[in-house]
């Protein structure tokens, strides 16, 4: 038989507990190499849209809060355009990187609420922020999405949420408003409330 001459993706390995050294050295306190950490904000001054703050924790199957987790987020601007697309808000860079507090385990994302971007079939996806989660004990980065409980009509019409077969699990993807402009979003790695993770 002929050979397809295709390469395999490099196998993933855990980020381990010391991921901050390489990805967030200033957050860790290792100042002196990079002037600033990358991804401290997904936007610049003047970004259009509703400014929001999302806080949460990542919780393991024993109920322990992860204090060594690092998360990256990627999102569209308020009109649903991704950076680089025609018409995109030049003040939205879209990507952020944040870690759990070493003591409390809480992480925080200050951003703007994204708009609806089209799915491959042309239907609009609900406003969402994609997350990629790495930590010690996580062998390959976990992919999930933050959607918003206060976007019920868009959620109901979202072709991605429609892929979640067990409808009661959609609730694990919804951030809930705790005050105007402030949302809460915990991620559960295991258990009854296990967050929906995607194979994309």
């Amino acid at each position: 038989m002929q050979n397809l001459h295709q390469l395999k993706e490099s196998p993933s390995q855990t980020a381990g507990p010391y991921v901050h050294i390489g990805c967030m050295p200033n957050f860790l306190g290792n100042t002196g190499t990079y002037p600033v950490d990358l991804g401290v904000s997904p936007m610049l001054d003047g970004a259009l849209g509703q400014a929001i703050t999302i806080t949460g924790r990542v919780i393991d199957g024993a109920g322990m809060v992860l204090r060594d987790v690092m998360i990256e987020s990627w999102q569209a601007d308020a009109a649903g355009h991704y950076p680089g697309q025609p018409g995109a808000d030049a003040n939205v860079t879209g990507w952020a990187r944040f870690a759990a507090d070493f003591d409390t385990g809480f992480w925080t994302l200050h951003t703007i609420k994204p708009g609806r971007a089209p799915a491959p079939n042309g239907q609009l996806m609900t406003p969402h922020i994609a997350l990629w989660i790495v930590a010690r004990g996580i062998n390959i980065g976990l992919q999930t999405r933050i959607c918003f409980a206060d976007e019920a009509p868009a959620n109901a019409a979202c072709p991605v949420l429609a892929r979640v077969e067990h409808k009661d699990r959609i609730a694990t993807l919804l951030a809930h408003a705790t005050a105007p402009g402030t949302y809460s979003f915990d991620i559960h790695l295991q258990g009854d409330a296990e967050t929906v993770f995607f194979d994309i």
Partner: protein
Amino acid sequence: MPDTAPATGPLIGRDRNWHPPAYTPHYKTSVTRAPQRALVALGSTLTEETGPAFGHSILGPLDNNLILNFTGQPAIGERIIVHGRVLDDSARPVPGVLVEIWQANAGGRYRHKKDGYLAPLDPNFAGCGRAITAPDGRYEFLTVRPGAYPWPNRTNDWRPMHIHFSVFGTGFGQRLITQMYFEGDPLIARCPIVNTVPSADGVGQLVAPLDMNAAIPMDCLAYKFDIVLRGRRQTRFENRLEGM
């Protein structure tokens, strides 16, 4: 101009049999951190097909020189070049993407508040570096060979010498963190983290060979480590019904 990886288009699905599964009990921390439900399968959308871009303006002149980039005084250890290419599944270079690394110092100690190993910190070694791939997909670091270190898992587990790699593609769905190991290290076969990779061929993809052609005489040895990212599907025929 090399034929480079396409920067747009649907991502080819991950081969989950090639990557480590989430639940790997010999690596104990995975037991409570592995999702237990099946992943929800989703073809890539615009969200995963787009991603952040980093310009060379983020780089300082010593960012890829871990021997000097902390204090300007040289770190202690065996000087090595670590170089390679970032490729897609068709072996086309992926240019202009960010590669970040971190590692222990020559004694096996990390500059991290959570690492209490008794090997000393090197005052001139932070252990982080970054580079952006060239038009031919190449990157290069100058560093010291990291020491092996013990870690709390089973009663006497040691990490082989390794460098952690964080790699961006052109889409957020290509994000990858992995580790590079060194040819000939007897601790590789014993390591429960290495052995989360299901196949020997997969492990072999993470072991960098000694590269004497890139070594600099009377200066440093070299290791070559190519990284492969998920590819994008080539659209040969539009998957669209007549009249639509």
